[in-house]
């Protein structure tokens, strides 16, 4: 990736400031259409998802009480993996975006929801909803570009440590929820100096994370394995039951982490996605913000099941345009959004999961090495423009 302002061919040179504002109005109109019909159907959807997930989790956990029997282990592990994916993606992520706040149900609300992830909801909302969604793909502002451990843009300075980034990325994928928690804590930056380490605010947040991790680890690796012991004793294989359940939980967590990491890599890293200079967003208008979301996100094509299992983040472009609309509506607006891309001659980046994941990984490998050519100078004439220019 090279920031749009340094590219040889500017993909939005053909748009005038008026075009961009018109584009913004058309997107607002799409948003209004959904707001007008948002209601019963969306409430039913999220309640059904929660009910399905909780039943699936209870069922899988119950089956895992018999984890000493291989078929039960396989069935329970698959069920638990799916349940954990649903819980994080279609339920947690979307509720924490405030998509269902309109229901006024205090149980399903962005201010009260807590999810099965190492990162406490409150901290994640700050780094994700506030920073990532506002500053999408702005190098230096949006830390989701590489999560502070990788170089995913030519504009980021290369260091020898980046040679190892394919390995870091793989480890991060396996333990993604902990990676996200560390990222929310800005662990690297905060541990570097004594002053930062001892900052009471940082320490308080770190304690919250540790408390949450401790509870979840106890649940997955102590309590549930212990619950499987009676069956283990009954068949004379208590250790098999204990470690079998531990392994099942580990595999489910691993599967969830690999899956969410892959889906999220597809959102902003594949080829064709644009990044932006820090200076380019000063005084950004609503139309320009929309345009940046359009250019900075990528979709995954696939079936309805695929969309649900990704929490509709397969519609990353639509999600970034309308982060607070119920995610199950993205499929509905996608054709309209895509038509806008075509009319304004913009690149709608989408593709099958395997292809997109490969594209993102290729970039991780390529940028582990220094750039072949030095970066071009910033072309300040390229929009998103400063409001003074829009007015002129």
């Amino acid at each position, binding site marked *: 990736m090279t920031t749009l302002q340094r590219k040889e061919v500017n993909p939005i040179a053909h748009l005038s400031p008026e075009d961009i504002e018109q584009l913004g109005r058309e997107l607002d109109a799409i948003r209004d259409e959904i707001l007008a019909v948002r209601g019963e159907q969306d409430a039913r959807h999220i309640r059904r998802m929660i009910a399905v997930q909780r039943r699936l989790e*209870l069922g899988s956990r119950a089956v895992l009480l018999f984890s000493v029997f291989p078929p039960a282990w396989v069935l329970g592990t698959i069920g638990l993996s799916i349940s954990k994916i649903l819980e994080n993606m279609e339920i947690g992520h979307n509720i924490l975006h405030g998509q269902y706040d309109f229901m*006024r149900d205090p*149980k399903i609300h962005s201010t009260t929801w*807590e999810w099965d992830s190492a990162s406490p909801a409150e901290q994640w909302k700050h780094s994700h*909803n506030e920073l990532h969604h506002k500053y999408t793909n702005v190098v230096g502002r949006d830390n989701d570009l590489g999560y502070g451990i990788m170089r995913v843009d030519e504009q980021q300075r290369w260091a020898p440590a980046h040679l190892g980034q394919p390995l870091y990325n793989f480890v991060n994928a396996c333990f993604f929820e902990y990676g996200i928690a560390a990222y929310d804590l800005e662990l690297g930056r905060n541990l570097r100096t004594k002053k930062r380490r001892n900052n009471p605010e940082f320490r308080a947040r770190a304690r919250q994370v540790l408390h949450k991790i401790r509870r979840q680890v106890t*649940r997955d690796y102590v309590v549930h394995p212990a*619950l499987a012991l009676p069956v283990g004793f009954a068949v004379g294989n208590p250790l098999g039951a204990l470690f079998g359940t531990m392994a099942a939980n580990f595999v489910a967590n691993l599967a969830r982490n690999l899956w969410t990491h892959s889906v999220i890599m597809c959102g902003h890293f594949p080829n064709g996605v644009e990044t932006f200079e820090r200076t380019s967003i000063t005084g950004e208008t609503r139309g320009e913000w929309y345009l940046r979301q359009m250019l900075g996100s990528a979709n995954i094509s696939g079936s309805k099941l695929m969309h649900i299992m990704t929490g509709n983040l397969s519609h990353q472009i639509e999600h970034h345009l309308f982060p607070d609309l119920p995610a199950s509506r993205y499929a509905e607006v996608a054709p309209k959004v895509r038509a806008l891309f075509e009319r304004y001659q913009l690149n709608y980046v989408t593709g099958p999961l395997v292809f997109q994941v490969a594209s993102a990984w290729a970039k991780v490998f390529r940028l582990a090495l220094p750039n072949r050519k030095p970066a071009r100078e910033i072309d300040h004439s390229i929009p998103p423009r400063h409001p003074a220019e829009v007015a002129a």
Partner: protein
Amino acid sequence: MPVNQTSLFTRRLRNGAWRVVELITTPVVPADYLDVIAPLRNPTVLRARIEAVRPETADAVTLELRPGRGWEPHQPGQYVRLGVDVDGVRLWRAYSVTSAAGRRDGRFTVTVNAVRDGVVSGHLLRHARKGMLVHLDVPAGDFVLTSPRPARTLFVTAGSGITPVMGMLRSALPELGDVVVVHSARTPEGVVFGAELRELAAQGRIRLIERHTRADGRLKPAALADLVPDLFERETWACGPGDMLDDLQEHWADAGAAERLHVERFRPTVLVAGDGGTVTFEKSGLVVDVAAGATVLDAAEAAGQLMRSGCRMGICFKCVLPMREGIVRDVRDGKLTTATEVDGDNVLIQTCISTAAGPCRLDA
């Protein structure tokens, strides 16, 4: 003392076991799983199941409710708040309990009268079905019978004002000696519980004075004095439209009998949207005029109020504050959000994209 030790031990054991159960379900609580299977068993969220739906008049319906765990019995005359999901949005309204107190089966009834343009009453009238769940709050209100019971009683009601009084009559009529009920409705058919009231009158258990306002016009206190000569010697309960109650209160005060009149006002829940408004921050005491188009966040910050904020464009939901009462407009799409006192739970609004569309009180 061995007894105490045992109970302490079992209590510890129970607490410990509960902590393990909480660990099993973390990060949510055990009740969240219970909700999926048995929604009425959740001790932290009070709900009720509609067991029967009975039409009363063309635009009134009685709901028989079976409350879940956490319910407390009501006193005759009290109301309950019902939280009903209309079009996916939970809206709260207060309804008087119309059934007799102390029913063996633990159920109670409310009678819902259609309010003009009433979102919730209209929804319940059309869609309430056996098996439906509603959210519930424990009974509240001090419009209740005094004890000991008065020897002579007068009830003055109009329209849906009969509902709390019906609860009182059904609960305590045998304990009340001499009872007069003066009830106004637009037409004879429009009298809620008309048949039951007339039956009680026919049995001589109450003296019923029915007034049909479409034919006879509205009842004035002076006319009431003609109908019930010993007016001020009776303990009186009145419920109905605000101006009727104003008239009665004035009349009773003039006679020096104000303490013998008990009134219940159904709060109006209709908020009319305007442009801009005064926003009161209850905790800090700050009062800010928010001009049309300006956001609550900007206006409050300009006035020196410390505000939580994040993206300032409506996407991060960090700036949400509870609105106790008021009406706001989304500056992006013009959508209105209202909160009334009955909402109770406080409606959370995003201050960064909300402008006042009338007076608002925020819990901040």
